[in-house]
């Protein structure tokens, strides 16, 4: 059934990084990303230090390099974008390997690439060490509106159910000799999507009934102890605070 979807991002473990409360890690990653973005792009060494800090975090969490690297494919569209900027950019030109490139755009590309990569790695580490539902509960703890958290929770729970339903509909189509090959087949796919939407919507209503039947009154009961000690906050804060110090030096 839905097996195999889960844990694509999460890597179970019991390291100190895994054990930190989700809200601490969320805030730490967020703060780290802001510091990285605020760092002047000319400070190459600062970005190098940030990368070293992330490597240290990954080592502490026992997340291997290959695990992170494979999940970084999500960044490819940004990389492509960054590669194209210098070619189409305007202004002063420099020649690199026989290509005439815009100097200003080269800086912009580097800026995007370096900062996005650091941000993506930090997020991958967060996801690798925190169960998805704990990330959501952490976000709730950080005052993300409970309704949004609930919606995301249901997405997490029903993703596989809906994927299964989609697969069954595809099998049903193909069993009757249909295979989407060209644009003329789009209406069929669109109708399937519509049917899937209606089925999911009806399921939503049934789930709501099931929730009401067990005393749901608008908010999810919080059954997990999500409290974090000052020490845990400090541990999680080590990453963004060190980054802040590095940024401070780069501004001097």
């Amino acid at each position, binding site marked *: 059934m839905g097996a195999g979807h889960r844990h694509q991002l999460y890597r179970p473990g019991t390291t100190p990084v895994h054990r930190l409360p989700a809200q601490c890690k969320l805030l730490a990653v967020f703060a780290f990303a802001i510091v990285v973005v605020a760092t002047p792009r000319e400070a190459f060494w600062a970005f190098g230090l940030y990368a070293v800090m992330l490597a240290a975090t990954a080592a502490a969490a026992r997340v291997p390099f290959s695990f992170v690297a494979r999940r970084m494919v999500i960044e490819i569209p940004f990389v492509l974008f960054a590669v194209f900027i210098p070619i189409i950019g305007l202004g002063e030109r420099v020649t690199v390997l026989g290509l005439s490139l815009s100097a200003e755009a080269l800086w912009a590309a580097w800026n995007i690439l370096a900062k996005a990569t650091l941000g993506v790695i930090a997020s991958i580490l967060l996801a690798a060490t925190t169960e998805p539902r704990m990330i959501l509960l952490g976000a709730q703890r950080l005052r993300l509106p409970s309704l949004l958290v609930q919606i995301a929770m249901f997405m997490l*729970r029903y993703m596989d159910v809906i994927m299964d339903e989609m697969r069954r509909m595809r099998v049903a189509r193909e069993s009757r000799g249909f295979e989407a090959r060209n644009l003329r087949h789009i209406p069929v796919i669109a109708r399937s999507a519509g049917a899937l939407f209606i089925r999911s919507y009806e399921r939503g209503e049934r789930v709501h009934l099931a*929730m009401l039947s067990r*005393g749901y*009154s608008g908010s999810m009961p919080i059954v997990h102890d999500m409290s974090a000690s000052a020490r845990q906050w400090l541990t999680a804060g080590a990453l963004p605070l060190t980054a802040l110090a590095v940024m401070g030096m780069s501004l001097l």
Partner: protein
Amino acid sequence: MKSLEVSQLAYAYPDGTQALFGVDLSIGRGERVALLGPNGAGKTTLVMHLNGILTPGHGTVHVAGVPVVRDRLKEVRQRVGLVFQDPDDQLFMPTVRDDVAFGPANMGVRGEELERVVKEALDRVGMLEAIDRPPHHLSFGQRRRVAVATVLAMEPEILVLDEPSSNLDPAARRELAEILRSLEVTVLMVTHDLPYALELCERSLILSGGVIAADGPTRELLADDGLLAAHRLELPYGFAIPAPPAGGRG
């Protein structure tokens, strides 16, 4: 006091379709009763009245003496444990533990007491070892058993099961029957699986055309071919009602 008392219950859907035309039934504490009826007889509509999801157009419903009315819904929903047909509708939390905890937590149970209630409910359906697993990784039969645990955790007065045997393979069906038989709780089982009703319930009601058309010992109702045929019910091919077991409950 009766676990469930329904009197003169009538209901029409907002589009005007009348589904129930004055249903009367009462179920004593500790009874296991099957509610039989063909598709479209109003079984699900009746079930939705038992915990106040639908409000009667006419008539009343009492659960353990508590009237099902808007101001008392919280009490009523604690007392009526509804197990839906599709366990994917019932199990909406990311893990089995969270799901079983949902009901009692809504009732204000917290901490160690909550953990105890959750474990006990899972133990009663033999699913304790699945406590940390996500529901979608369980087999269909296991999911249905967890669904039963989610309502047992609320310590209900009456367990209402909607088509409990549907989509179960024979082994899962037998396991569920054993679990249901072991529970010391009033059960109302909505089904058109007649052998299952015979196996588990001494008494049956036939809901047909929005009224209770028959009420009596399951064995007698199922032996009456004319009655079954009149209400679009049929025993499976080759099924003969076995002789009653000596001295036990049916």
